[in-house]
């Protein structure tokens, strides 16, 4: 059950989700699903030649997990907007924390809506992805 309008006051949140340590398999599974086969995310010699010590995390993978955190909370059918900005690279072995909260609750065109601020943070590091989302509340 998705939360009700009354439960979604400004500041309302859901428990954060922790994912990891990330594996190369997480990256490869996402790359196969999305169709982005850039070798820098799975081919160790290629990543080293590009100046990295390990395959670089796939930005759209953890952005997608951030979307999952939000839709698990407020319902996949209710999302109306989702936006991410990448801030910091992610690596195999990283533990990521996904969280967010309601920053605005309003009515628009006869629909009840909430705007969220979201974050994917690296344990022992900084914010990897900032996110924003809009959901209708039914």
């Amino acid at each position, binding site marked *: 059950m998705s939360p009700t309008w009354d439960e979604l006051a400004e500041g309302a949140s859901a428990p954060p989700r922790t*994912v990891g340590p990330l594996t190369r398999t997480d990256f490869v*599974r*996402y790359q*196969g*699903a*999305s*169709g*982005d086969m850039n070798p820098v995310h799975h081919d160790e010699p290629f990543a080293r030649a590009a100046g990295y010590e390990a395959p670089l995390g796939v*930005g*759209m*993978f953890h*952005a*997608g*997990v951030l*979307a*999952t955190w*939000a*839709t*698990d909370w407020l*319902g*996949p*059918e*209710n*999302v*109306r*907007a*989702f*936006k*991410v*900005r*990448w*801030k*910091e*690279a992610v690596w195999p072995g990283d533990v990521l924390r996904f969280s967010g909260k309601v920053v605005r609750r309003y009515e628009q065109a006869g629909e009840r809506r909430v705007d969220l601020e979201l974050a994917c943070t690296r344990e022992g590091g900084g914010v990897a992805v900032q996110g924003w*989302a809009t959901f209708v509340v039914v």
Partner: protein
Amino acid sequence: MAKETAVGAEGVPFELEVERGKIRELARATLSSHPAYMKDERPVSPPTFLTTMFFWEEHTPGSNPWHRVELDPKRGMHAEQEYVFFGPPPRAGTRLVGRSRIESVTHKEGRRGGRLTFAVMVTEFRDATTGALVAEARMTGVETERPPQEGETR
């Protein structure tokens, strides 16, 4: 160096069919086990599902105008991505027609010096049957003036 002349460049329309198996695959790859994705006969697609448009674009020559920007692959990266839905996200079985255009190429001074160039491509998705606008994807790429240094972030 990103090309400002690319602004306004438009790709030819391409078809994208929203498929149940692909929804499951992407939901699983983004660590969701929500029953709305896994159990519904006609599930809605996850918020970032339209990233799979590349599977469809590559079969429609001329549909992706992004190369017209000529972002240097060694100094370019994905900076932002946005999806807007004009109703519930498209469900399995929906046939969409996508059309991409280069919206803007802009410049900004980076915090550690060096000019940053941002390029934005917008893709509109319409229902192939009704023509109704279903979703819009907005991809922002950034190019730095010089390759990023060790441990440097934007």
